[in-house]
C-alpha cells in the first residue's frame, strides 16, 4: 500500500471512528487517558476511543503486531500522526509504558517478556511507573542502594525510590536495583519489573513547593520480583538505563516550544503597559526583549536540530545543550512573567480555580533544570562529549 493510499484509508477510518468529543485539544491534565487496572474513564467516548485505537494497534503504531502494535513504518506512523492532528484527535493513551519501558523491552527483552508485558501496555491495561532516583542517588544515579537478593525464582527487594511519577496510581514499576553488591558500581545494577500489587510495595506522595505533585516516594520492604521479570542480564541494568536516558534526551528535541503565558501577555493582563501597548517599565521591557530573542532562537533551534537529525546528522550529545537552553530560558520566562504581573503574580490561593496558577507554574519550572539530568550534568556532557574537553 502506498503512503497516499495509507493516508486515505487512515483519514476515512479516523473520520468514522474518532468520537466527536475526542476531537478537541486536551485542556488539562484531567483529559489525559493513562489507563491501568484502576483507571476510570472520564467519558464513554474516552473508553471507546482507546478501545478502537488499541484494536487497530494504533496506540503504539510502530510496535510489531504480535506485541499489540500495528507494525507501521516510520513514514506511516508520521502520516497517522498528521491525520490525527488534522482533526485534533486526542492521543488515545499516554503512558510511561509506551514512552519508556516499551522501547527498552523491544530492545533488550526476550520474546516471552515482550509477549507478556507489551500488549497490556498497548491496550492500556497496565500502567507503569519508573523507579530510578533515590534519596542518595540523584545526578549520580549509579550510586543507588536499593538492593535485590536472589532467592530461588525471585529477588527480594528492599530500599526506597523517589520522584516516581504517579506511583500511587500505577500497577507495575520498572526499577533499577543493585543485585550484585560485589561488582563495580556501574556493573552491579539490574533492571527489574515489579508488580506493585503486593504488601511489600508502598507509596507516599511528595508535596512540592509549587503545591500538589504527581511525584511519590516508593518503598520496597521485602518486595518480590520474579527473575523472569529481569530485563537483560543480571548487572546489565545500567546499560539499559543509559539507553533510556539518552532516548529521553533525544525525545526532548521533538517536543514543542514554550506554551502558556509569556511576559508580554502578562504585562497586558496586569495593565502594566503604556498608551502604545508597550510594557511600561522600560528596564523590564529590555529583559523581555532579550527573552523574546532567545525564545525565538530556541524554538527555531529545536526545528533546526530535528531537521538535521532527519538528515542523518544525529542529535547525540547536542541534546544536552538543548535541554540546558530550553530549561534555563523557560525559567527566565516564568521569572519575567512574575515580574510583569507584579503583586498579581504572587497570588497563591483565591476563589477562582486558576488563582495561583502563575506562581505554581513559576515554581514548577524550577524543577526543569533538575529533573531528567540537572543543568550541571548537561553542561558536563556538552563539555566532555561535544567539546571533548579532558579530565573528570
Amino acid at each position, binding site marked *: 500500500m502506498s503512503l497516499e493510499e495509507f493516508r486515505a484509508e487512515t483519514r476515512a477510518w479516523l473520520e468514522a471512528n474518532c468520537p466527536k468529543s475526542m476531537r478537541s485539544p486536551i485542556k488539562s491534565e484531567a483529559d489525559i487517558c493513562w489507563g491501568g487496572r484502576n483507571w476510570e474513564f472520564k467519558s464513554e467516548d474516552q473508553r471507546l476511543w482507546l478501545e478502537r485505537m488499541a484494536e487497530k494497534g494504533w496506540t503504539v503504531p510502530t510496535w510489531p503486531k504480535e506485541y499489540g502494535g500495528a507494525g507501521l513504518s516510520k513514514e506511516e506512523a508520521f502520516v497517522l500522526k498528521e491525520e490525527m492532528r488534522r482533526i485534533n484527535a486526542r492521543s488515545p493513551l499516554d503512558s510511561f509504558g509506551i514512552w519508556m519501558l516499551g522501547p527498552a523491552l523491544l530492545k533488550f527483552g526476550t520474546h516471552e517478556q515482550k509477549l507478556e508485558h507489551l500488549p497490556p501496555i498497548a491496550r492500556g491495561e497496565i500502567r507503569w511507573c519508573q523507579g530510578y*532516583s533515590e534519596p542518595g542517588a540523584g545526578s549520580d544515579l549509579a550510586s543507588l542502594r536499593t538492593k535485590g537478593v536472589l532467592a530461588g525464582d525471585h529477588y527480594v527487594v528492599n530500599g526506597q525510590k523517589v520522584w516516581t511519577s504517579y506511583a500511587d496510581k500505577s500497577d507495575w514499576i520498572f526499577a533499577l536495583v543493585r543485585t550484585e553488591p560485589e561488582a563495580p558500581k556501574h556493573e552491579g545494577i539490574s533492571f527489574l519489573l515489579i508488580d506493585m500489587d503486593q504488601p511489600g510495595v508502598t507509596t507516599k506522595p511528595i508535596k512540592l513547593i*509549587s503545591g500538589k505533585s504527581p511525584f511519590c516516594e516508593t518503598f520496597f520492604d521485602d518486595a518480590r520480583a520474579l527473575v523472569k521479570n529481569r530485563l537483560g542480564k543480571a548487572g546489565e541494568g545500567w546499560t539499559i538505563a543509559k539507553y533510556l536516558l539518552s532516548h529521553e534526551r533525544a525525545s526532548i528535541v521533538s517536543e514543542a516550544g514554550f506554551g502558556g503565558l509569556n511576559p508580554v501577555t502578562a504585562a497586558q493582563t496586569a495593565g502594566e503597559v503604556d498608551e502604545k501597548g508597550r510594557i511600561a517599565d522600560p*528596564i*523590564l521591557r529590555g529583559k523581555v526583549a532579550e527573552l523574546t530573542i532567545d525564545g525565538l532562537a530556541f524554538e527555531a533551534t529545536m526545528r533546526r536540530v530535528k531537521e538535521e537529525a532527519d538528515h542523518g546528522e544525529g542529535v547525540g550529545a547536542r541534546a544536552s545543550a538543548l535541554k540546558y537552553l530550553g530549561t534555563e530560558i523557560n525559567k527566565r520566562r516564568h521569572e519575567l512573567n512574575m515580574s510583569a504581573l507584579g503583586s498579581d503574580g504572587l497570588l497563591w490561593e483565591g476563589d477562582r480555580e486558576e488563582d495561583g496558577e502563575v506562581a505554581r507554574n513559576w515554581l514548577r519550572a524550577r524543577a526543569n533544570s*533538575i529533573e531528567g539530568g540537572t543543568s550541571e550534568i548537561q553542561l558536563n556532557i556538552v563539555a566532555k562529549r561535544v567539546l571533548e574537553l579532558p579530565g573528570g
Partner: protein
Amino acid sequence: MSFILNEEEQMLRDSAKAFLAQSAPVSALRKLRDESDPVGFSKQLWASMAEMGWTGILVEEDHGGVDMGYAAAGLLLQEMGRTLTASPFLATSVLAASALKLAGTDAQKAAWLPKIAAGETVIAFAVDERARHNPDHVETRATKDGNGFRLNGKKRFVSCGMGADAVIVAARTEDDRINLFLVDTGAKGVERTPRRTVDSHVPADFAFDDVKLDGDALLAGAEDSETAYRHVLDAGRACLAAESLGVAEEAFDRTIDYIKEREQFGQPIGSFQGLQHRAAHLYSEMELARTLVLKALRVLDETPSQAPLWCAAAKAKATAVSRLAGSEGIQMYGGVGMTDEYDIGLYYKRAQAAGEFLGDDSWAAGQVAKLAGY
C-alpha cells in the same frame, strides 16, 4: 557615616537572633500557613515584639518608643528575613510610624505613636493600586465634605491589611496632591478581601466606597505631604531590602551547608568547581548587597536628603541578590529543594514577594537612572 555597627546595634542584633530562633522560626510561618491563619501573623508574637521594644524602634522616647533609627529597624528586619518571620513590623513600626512621624500633627503623633510602641495596634500602609509598584499612580480620591472627607478608591495587596485596625491611605486631594489619611478599617464603606500570597502572607485588597472621614484623619503635620509620602516609601524600601538581605543570607548559608554534606559521585557536591565558582560569585554579590543595605539605612538616619538614590539602589540589589540566592539554593539542593519538606523553597518564595513590594529590581534600577540624571 560608619559601616561598623555600634555596641547597641550589635546587642540588638544578637538578642533579635536569639529571640527569633526561639519565638518565630520558620516552623512558625509553616504553622500560620497550614492553619490558614486569617491575618497571616501571630498577635502573640506582636505582643512579644512590643515587650522587646521593637514595635517602637522608630518612635521617640516621649511617645514610649526607643527611637533607635532606621539602621536598627533594618537589622531587626534582616534577622526576621533569616527566619521568615511574618509580622506587622514593616507595615506598622516602619511605614505607619514613619508616616506619622513625618506627616502627623503633634496630636496625631500623641494619639497613635504610643499605641504603636506598645504593640496595641496594627496599622497598615496602603499605596499601590495596580499590579506593579508605582508611587505616582494614585487615583484614590479624598474629597472635602464639611470638616471632613469622603474617601473613594481601591488599594491592592496591602501588607498585613487583614490584621490591621487602621490603614494609612495615600489619596489625592482636590489640589491633585497626594496626602495620607488614617482610616479605621472598621469604618462604614471600608471593605477588605484577603489575598493569600505565595510567601504565605495575607495582604488585603481594600475598597473604599464613600468612606466618611473626620478632619483629623488627614495627616496634616507635614509642610509638604507628598515629600513625606515619598520619604516613607524610601524608608520602606531600605527596610524591605534589609529583610531581603536576611532572606538571601540564610538561604545562602543553608545552601553552603548542604553542598558540603550532600555527596554525589563519591564526593561532596560542594567540591565541584562549577558549583564553587557560582557560590563564590553569589557570596561576592551578597557583599555588595550588604553594603548598599547598611548604607541606605544609615543615610535615612544621617543624611536623609540622599535617601532616594541609596534606598532605590539597595532595593534593586537586595531584590536581585535574594532571588538569585533562592534560585541557586533550589538548584544546588536539587530535587529535595523542590519539595515542601525543605525550607529553601520558602526562602525563594519570600524573596519574590518581598522583591515586588515597593518596587522590584527593574523598577528600582529605573529610579536610580532617573535620580542619577540620565
